[in-house]
């Protein structure tokens, strides 16, 4: 089976973590971009097509949650998996209410990561498909109007 690479953006201020994690994902064939803060992450999203963002939510500043909000407003179709070294599952659950697809606690099990990445990508594909169909219907109806 040919693997279709998932286009991933890793956002975390722990540079060593980003480096090793992206090497690992690349090695298994994903397309990985990286950012060390929320602002840079949004810049990357402007220019590079991304399926899934893996986003670290830091507890104190809550800027991870802010970044999540921004991503979901500006790029609603992109799926976000939250990664947390801090805080409890509660923060993560709150994140999911704000539209995150799922969450993982650091250090995460690589198998878990892969399952969640795959599911996130699947959901994004389905969403895109639904949008395409909706657009097609819209087009059809419009053309029917004439």
């Amino acid at each position: 089976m040919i693997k279709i690479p998932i286009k991933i953006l890793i956002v975390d201020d722990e540079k060593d973590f980003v480096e090793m994690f992206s090497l690992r994902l690349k090695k298994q064939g994903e397309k990985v971009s990286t950012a060390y803060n929320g602002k840079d992450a949004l810049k990357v999203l402007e220019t590079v097509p991304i399926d899934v963002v893996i986003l670290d939510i830091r507890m104190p500043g809550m800027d991870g949650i802010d970044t999540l909000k921004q991503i979901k407003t500006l790029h609603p179709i992109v799926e976000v998996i939250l990664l947390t070294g801090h805080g409890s599952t509660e923060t993560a659950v709150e994140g999911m209410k704000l539209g995150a697809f799922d969450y993982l606690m650091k250090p995460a099990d690589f198998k878990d990561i892969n399952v969640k990445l795959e599911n996130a990508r699947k959901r994004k594909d389905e969403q895109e498909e639904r949008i395409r169909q909706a657009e097609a219907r819209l087009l059809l109806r419009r053309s029917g109007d004439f």
Partner: protein
Amino acid sequence: MDRVYDDKIRLLLVDDEEGFRRTISKRLAKRGMIPVQASDGEECLGILKTTPMDVVVLDVKMPGISGIDTLRLIKQEFENIQVILLTGNVAVSDGIDGIKSGAFDYLTKPVEIDHLVNKIKQAFEIIQLEKEKQKERGYREKLEKKMIDTERLVSLGTMSTGIAHEINNPLAIINESAGFMKQVISSPEMSMFSQKDALLLGIEKIEKSIKRARKITHELLGHVKKQDSQFSQANLKALLYETLGLLKREIKNKQININWEIDPKKNMVWSDPYQLRQVMMNLLSNAIHALGENGSITLSTRETSEDIILEIKDDGIGIPKENLGKIFDPFFTTKPFDEGTGLGLFVAHKILSGLGCKIDVTSTVGKGTCFQIRLPKYDKSNE
């Protein structure tokens, strides 16, 4: 002071002269004090062994054991008893010796009865004061110990979550690095490398150790309270159901029966559902762990005027008496290191105290264990 008060003083009068004893006793009785009588030191000590006394009025000059020696023996054995000495007119030095040996005071014969009564009352007051002080001291000691315990737990809790935070990030880096190395070594280019298996074995150990450390940090973080932890109406049955969903696999593997005895009318509580779920998770996974195949877990609720009591009961191995006092301590576990961290109940207890709930446990070895959680009932006025 009134008679009732004087009645309470348990008084022993010791004098070898029977006539003197009788007169003094009669006069004391008129003032509401009825003394027990003894004719010498030996009899006095014998009575004290069987009958508790507050004040002893003791003649110094007696045949047999002298008054002063009797006093010393009394003070040695009964530190709470106060002794008033009666000395002859000429022997003031006896009185002074007596005070040095711990007498409350001394009176010279012939005794003025009101004077004696006053002294007895003073001695009794001293005893009461002493008792109060002792009680207070005991109380303070207990309180201090309790405060130290709580403080210890709180600071331990804060510190341990802090450490857990700080450790998770480097742990994640180690994890990804080891994982990456494994990928590299397993790639086809490395197939000819003769030491490959040795390296993989080493990496496997690293990964196993990361998992072990992660178990600890994750359990510690389980009770980090979100700043705006929200109280709301919470449905116990629904929460239990969700939690059991997360434990599905274990329940199926061991074929565990879940008995639902939850009355839908006694089911709504006012609490933080997220944190409650965490508590349920910790208690249920312990219950599952304590059960063999085909064991059962019974979930039930009871109601008092203000609270709902949730019971999580298993018919598993039970907890030995000597462990019951320790199970809520951090890191207390009877499980092998890769199965238990000893943090589950510590965290559950911490969460529940934070929520103003109480947790109790009863257990019999070989029969099973029952955890009871007392939760504030939901009523509309909560909102």
